[in-house]
């Protein structure tokens, strides 16, 4: 049990997917202008990533390794993720419309979110067991959500500040992300 807690903490804080591993930066900058969109994106990523982590792990173990097809990993994972996102979208639309209304527009974006494919590949690379894989998928995506929501809060404040013209928008966003990343950097001492 202790191992799982440690794994979770290291995935959320020390190896934070956005600020330390540099994955998923396009939605990080794209959806962080408003708090609501940031929360929606964070929820959608957590939801899809846990499912995708479990399914890609099974694909790897039961199909690719069994038939010696490891070189097709990239291609099969991206197809699995794309199909899963489509399926989740249809399922939510039909059975949980309230949740669909909240996550709807973010779901298609997740296919090309490199955090999702990245975490699935990390799970395989680190040779996690099935439970560890679930824990790491959940904590990496929570780390993503944490960083995204923190960043959206800061960014709403920046809108009120006077920023020099060439620095506006993405540019100041990146500098802010750098400062946020510096704060997360301090967790490295814990490892």
């Amino acid at each position: 049990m202790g191992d799982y807690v440690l794994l979770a903490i290291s995935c959320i804080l020390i190896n934070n997917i956005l600020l330390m591993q540099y994955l998923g930066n396009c939605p990080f900058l794209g959806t962080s202008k408003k708090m609501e969109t940031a929360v929606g994106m964070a929820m959608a990523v957590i939801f899809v990533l846990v499912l995708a982590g479990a399914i890609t792990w099974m694909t790897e173990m039961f199909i690719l390794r069994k038939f010696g097809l490891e070189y097709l990993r990239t291609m099969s994972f991206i197809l699995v993720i794309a199909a899963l996102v489509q399926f989740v979208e249809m399922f939510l639309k039909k059975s949980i419309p309230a949740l669909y209304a909240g996550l709807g527009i973010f779901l298609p974006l997740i296919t090309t979110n490199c955090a999702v494919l990245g975490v699935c590949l990390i799970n395989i690379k680190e040779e996690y067991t099935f439970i560890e894989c679930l824990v790491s998928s959940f904590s990496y995506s929570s780390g993503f959500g944490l960083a995204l929501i923190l960043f959206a809060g800061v960014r709403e404040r920046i809108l009120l500040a006077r920023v020099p013209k060439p620095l506006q928008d993405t540019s100041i966003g990146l500098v802010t992300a750098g400062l946020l990343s510096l704060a997360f950097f301090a967790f490295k001492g814990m490892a």
Partner: protein
Amino acid sequence: MAKSITQEFTKGLWNEIPPFRLVLGLCPTLAVTKTVENAIGMGVAVIFVLVGSNVLVAMLRKIIPSKVRIACFIIVVATFVTVVELLMQAYTYPLFLKLGIFIPLIVVNCIPLGRAEAFAYKNGIIPSFADGLGLGIGYAMSLTVLAAIREIFGSGTFYGNQVFGPSFQPFNFMVEAPGAFVCLGLMLCVMNFIGKK
């Protein structure tokens, strides 16, 4: 088509240079620019994937039905990424190890997918080739410039060779994650400043 082939090629070098003007493909831009060597390796891989996928999508654009085009593009891009992955594993193994999961992640690096959707699906083979090559080279150049800044200040070397004398204290901040964000942000600022004039 009013635009000439050369225009398609040169627009990728400044007007639509990927990480800055289109703000696409940021993750590898930040992650692989610790050293110039990694950046050039990544740049070449992206050029190959981009040119290959653009040409193939342009060739197949009459056959691909528009309803499932995104799925088709993803498969085309993933095929070329797998080819690059296997080639790098065979011929440049140390580089393959250094770039790690960022090679398979070229699939979801929005540039090849974005160009397939925005350009190759609507244009012929030769303009698509020029477009892919131009944007690919633009991307590789920006990676190299960013990597050069980070490597020179962060570890005092350029392509593995010492730049400063032995008394130079490396500015560690630059090679770590925060430095990557700040450095890219400031480069974007400089680009905006020059573009304004």
